[in-house]
Structure formats: structure tokens, C-alpha cells
């Protein structure tokens, strides 16, 4: 039952917040309590999997592979824990960010529906069930994206919806082909059934469909155009939630399905993934350099980071996979912190356009330092959390003798530093166009608390990198050899 809580709790919170629609105060209280409960359940799952290894639960008591299975190994459990952390931070931040009107149109129920979809997608052990959770997440994200109804939101949503619907169709077509040839949709059972059938044309076709679907969800080259068009349009809380978690579901699904179900080593998909990752990194950082508003720069840096994670996975050695996983984990926190601080800065300076903001350093130096830490972590400055996975990735690519990939990783890091420096100089360092007195507003508790705690977490990961490297190496072992996962789902092999 433990594994169902990250789905049940958000749905229940959505129900309660929907029923409390008359009073925004009660809605907020319920919403925050729901987020804390989600965090607590995620912590319980995390500590359980750390102590006892992967666990599985069967819905309705129907044994795998016939029922719907929920599985938590170290990767899923950590992702769910990050969902809990980000949910709490974002919902707290939303109290001072989301307008009353947006709350009236269902900000809180939709956010919790999104969280339920995320929890389900990370925990499910069944590929069709994963499709269903993707849809739960997708429909909630559609709602959150257009809430408010501004013209730029509608224009961004058209692109977001259009590309995501194609990805959905590809996903379902891939699952259909897979079921047609393997006769099961349980991922562990698929692993056993497809063992030794790597060259089958049907298997490769279904893998291509799924790769397309997950790559569009993760905004991989060349399927990323929807992300910079839409992620900067909704409220800051929503874009923090999207950038920290929603694109990561695509990355997680790639990691999970292409290690457990398919064996891509040596197949035609391996070079596609590798070069897709390199081009994603390049387009992400160069896109970030060409933009002149805070959230649009950050939107492109999401793409660059996604490229880095996929590169780690595509290189495929133990250290490289661990680097990809580490990058995935710390990027969730960094992106959430950055988008929330973009919100706080925009509230201080009155705009998120470079030309219309500035002067934060001179009027709010402490706040500027809090902003600087996740920004430097994004750029990969030691000893912050973003540095270690980059170091691991460079080391792993050099071990394989691919100088080019090591160079691409370092260049991406350098250009990210450059992009961050541009934001810093335009928004924080330079003077405000209306003079320094333009900044009169102050920031309240619900803005400070999530920012400071996320920043502290980023520092904590950076300073405790040893433990996290161990954790990610364990996860990399589980990804490369999923025996423990299979045993948890199907029982001891006969």
C-alpha cells in the first residue's frame, strides 16, 4: 500500500481543494498540507527502498504480470522524493505568486492532479499504466498552462498541446506494437520476453515510437520547440513545477524503458540517442545566449541540461549513467530554485525583461546571493551540486576515449556559465532603468522560505557529494543490471 500513497494523497488533496472552492484560504491550507503529506510518504518510500532494495505492490492483489504493478527502486524513490520536495516549495511560493483569479479557476486541484500523474509515472511498473499517468499529467499541465488566459499563454499552449498530442499518439502506437509482439505490458515481464529478440523489426519499430514519444516529452533535439514557446507563459509557480518535474518525466521514462524493456546497446537507436543528446546540449546553450528575458533563458538551459542527462545515459558506462542520474536529481532542485527566484526577482524589479529590470544587488544584496547559488550550480561551479555530475561525465567520456564528447560537455558548461553571467549582469548587477529607487517592494515569507530551503539543499548536495555519488552509482548498477527490480516484481526466477 505504501507505494500507492504518492498517487492517492495528491488525488485526495485535489478532491478537498475542489470542494473548498469558496474559500481560497482553506484551499491553500489543504493544498500545503497535501504537499507535506506527499513529502512524508515519499520519504517513507525512499528510506524503505534504501534499506530493503526495490519493492513492488500489486493493485487489487492481482499478481504480476497480470495486474497493474507499482514498483519503487532507488531511481523511482528518489524521483518521488524530489516530487515531494518541489511540490512543497512551489505550493508555498504560489501563495504570494498565483492570483486569486487563477486560484478560483482551479490552480490547486490542477497542481495536485499533476503531482498525482508524476507520482504514478515514476512508480508504475507497467508501460500502459505509464501512458495513463502521462495523460493525467498532460491534461493537468494543459489546464495549468492556460489558466489566466493571456494571449501569450494561448499561443504557447497551441504549440505545447500540438506537439505533446503527437507524442501521445506515438506512445500508444508503440505500446500497441509491443503488446502485439510480446503479449504483455508489464515492463519486467517484457524484459524477460524480449530477451534475445533485439533484432526483431517489430521490436525496433516499437522502440522507435517510444523513443520519439519520450524524446518529445523530454524536449530532446529536434523535438524541443514547444518548450521555449510555452514554459515562460504561465505563473512562476507553474513554470517552476513544469521545468523541475514535467520534462524530467520524459528523461525518467527513457532511462527506465530503454534499460528495462529494450537493450539499446549496439542497436540503431544508440547513435541516435547519443547525437540527439549532443545536439540538444548545443541548441540549449546557444538558444539561452540568444534570449533577453529571464525565463526564456532558463527555458533554453533546461534543454541544455536535458541533453547532458541523456548523454550520460547514451554513453552507457556505469560512471556515465551515474552522472546522468546525478545530473537529473540535482537539476530538479536547481531548476525549481531558479524559476522561483526568477519570480521573486520579477516581483522586485517589476519585469523579467533584461531591458526593464536591474538593481537587485544594490538594494537587496542578501537576496542576490541566494539567487547566485543555484545559478552557479547550473553553470557547474565547484563545489555546488551541478559540478559533480559534469565532472563524472567528463571522466566517463574520457575513459571511453571519446575526446569530442568530453569537449562537448565542457563547452556546454562554459556556455551555461556565460548565459548565467548574462542574466546576472542584466538583472542583478546593472542599475535599474528607472533608478535604484524603483525597487521598493519587499518579499514575504512564502517567497523566502522555499527559495532559501531549495538553495540550502543545493549546497548540501554539493558538500555531501560523496554520499550522492554512492547513491547514483547504486542506481546505475540497478539500471545496468535490473535483476533486483525483476525479483521484486515477478518473484524469484524459477
Amino acid at each position, binding site marked *: 500500500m505504501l507505494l500507492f500513497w504518492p498517487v492517492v494523497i495528491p488525488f485526495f488533496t485535489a478532491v478537498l481543494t475542489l470542494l473548498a472552492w469558496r474559500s481560497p484560504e482553506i484551499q491553500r491550507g489543504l493544498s500545503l498540507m497535501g504537499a507535506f503529506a506527499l513529502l512524508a510518504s515519499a520519504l517513507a518510500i525512499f528510506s524503505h527502498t534504501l534499506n530493503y532494495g526495490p519493492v513492488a505492490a500489486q493493485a487489487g492483489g492481482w499478481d504480476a504480470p497480470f495486474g497493474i504493478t507499482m514498483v519503487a527502486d532507488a531511481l523511482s524513490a528518489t524521483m518521488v522524493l524530489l516530487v515531494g520536495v518541489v511540490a512543497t516549495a512551489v505550493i508555498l511560493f504560489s501563495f504570494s505568486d498565483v492570483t486569486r483569479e487563477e486560484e478560483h479557476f482551479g490552480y490547486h486541484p490542477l497542481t495536485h492532479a499533476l503531482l498525482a500523474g508524476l507520482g504514478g509515472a515514476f512508480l508504475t511498473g507497467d508501460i*500502459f499504466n505509464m*501512458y*495513463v499517468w502521462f*495523460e493525467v499529467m*498532460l*491534461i493537468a499541465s*494543459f489546464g495549468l498552462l*492556460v489558466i489566466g*488566459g493571456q*494571449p*501569450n*499563454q*494561448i*499561443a*504557447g*499552449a*497551441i*504549440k505545447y*498541446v*500540438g506537439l505533446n*498530442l*503527437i507524442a*501521445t*499518439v*506515438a506512445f*500508444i*502506437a508503440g*505500446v*500497441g*506494437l509491443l*503488446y*502485439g509482439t510480446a*503479449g504483455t*505490458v508489464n515492463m519486467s515481464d517484457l524484459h524477460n520476453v524480449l530477451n534475445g529478440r533485439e533484432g526483431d523489426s517489430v521490436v525496433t519499430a516499437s522502440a522507435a515510437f517510444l523513443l520519439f514519444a519520450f524524446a518529445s516529452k523530454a524536449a530532446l533535439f529536434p523535438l524541443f520547440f514547444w518548450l*521555449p*514557446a*510555452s514554459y*515562460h*507563459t504561465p505563473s512562476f509557480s507553474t513554470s517552476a513545477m513544469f521545468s523541475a518535474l514535467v520534462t524530467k518525466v520524459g528523461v525518467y521514462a527513457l532511462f527506465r524503458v530503454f534499460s528495462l524493456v529494450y537493450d539499446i546497446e549496439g542497436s540503431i537507436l544508440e547513435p541516435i540517442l547519443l547525437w540527439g543528446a549532443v545536439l540538444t546540449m548545443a541548441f540549449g546553450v546557444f538558444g539561452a545566449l540568444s534570449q533577453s528575458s529571464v525565463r526564456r533563458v532558463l527555458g533554453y538551459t533546461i534543454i541544455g541540461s536535458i541533453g547532458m542527462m541523456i548523454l550520460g545515459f547514451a554513453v552507457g558506462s556505469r560512471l556515465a549513467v551515474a552522472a546522468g542520474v546525478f545530473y537529473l536529481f540535482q537539476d530538479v532542485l536547481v531548476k525549481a530554485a531558479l524559476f522561483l527566484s526568477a519570480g521573486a526577482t520579477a516581483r522586485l524589479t517589476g519585469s523579467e525583461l533584461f531591458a526593464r529590470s536591474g538593481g537587485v544587488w544594490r538594494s537587496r544584496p542578501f537576496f542576490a546571493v541566494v539567487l547566485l547559488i543555484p545559478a552557479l550550480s547550473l553553470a557547474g561551479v565547484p563545489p555546488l551540486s551541478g559540478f559533480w555530475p559534469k565532472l563524472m561525465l567528463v571522466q566517463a567520456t574520457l575513459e571511453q576515449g571519446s575526446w569530442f564528447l568530453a569537449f562537448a560537455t565542457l563547452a556546454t558548461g562554459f556556455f551555461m556559465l556565460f548565459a548565467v553571467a548574462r542574466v546576472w549582469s542584466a538583472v542583478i548587477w546593472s542599475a535599474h532603468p528607472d533608478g535604484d529607487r524603483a525597487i521598493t517592494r519587499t518579499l514575504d515569507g512564502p517567497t523566502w522560505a522555499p527559495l532559501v530551503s531549495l538553495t540550502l539543499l543545493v549546497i548540501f548536495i554539493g558538500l555531501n557529494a560523496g554520499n550522492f555519488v554512492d547513491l547514483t552509482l547504486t542506481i546505475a548498477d540497478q539500471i545496468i543490471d535490473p535483476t533486483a527490480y525483476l525479483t521484486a516484481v515477478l518473484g524469484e526466477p524459477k
Partner: protein
Amino acid sequence: MEIMLAVLAGFLVSAGAYLMMSGKTLPYLFGLTMISNAANIIIFCAGRLTFGAPPLIPEGEKYIEGAANALPQALVLTAIVIGFGLLVFALTLAYRSWFVLGTVEMDDMHESEPGTEVIS
């Protein structure tokens, strides 16, 4: 029968792709609906196509020969319902975008990405 449905799925995909290329919101959605129906047909075929053989296992036996697998039909039902919900949302969005942005041409929707007008 499988070949007929395969041809139908191919036809739906090509017609859908043609519609999606038009660059307008509504034809795009109609094309997408056609392609998603093609995907549904693929799953439907995955469970074997049979005439007059209900997948009911007689009492006392464990398996049944020659009947269609009922699971893909349940999967298709789920996919249809989800696809239908998404389509309703997308149609409403297309309507709103026409009303708010005053255009159905996706190339003319620059509100979310200011600065891209020059290129296109």
C-alpha cells in the same frame, strides 16, 4: 482482414499528416485525430481479429483456441476515452486562440515568442 486494417491505418496516417501540414489549428487537430485513430487500429489488431468467437473460456478449461485477446480492446477503450478528452480540450483551445489571437495560422502566433516575426 489485417491487411485491410493496415491499409486503412496507413491511409489515415497519410491523410492526417497532409491535414497537419496545412499550418492551421483546426485542420491540424483533425489530422491528429485521424492519426490517433490509426494508432487505435494498430492496438486493436494486436489482439487478433476473429469472427464470431467470443473470448469466453468454457467451464473446466484453462485456455481457448481461436478467440481474440480481449485486453487490447480494453486498452483501446482507454486510449479512445483519453484521446477524446484531449481532443475536446484542444478544440476549445483552438476556438479560444482564434478568438483571442484573431488567427488560425500557427505561423502567425508570435505572442509567446516575441521577436520571431521577422524570421517567418
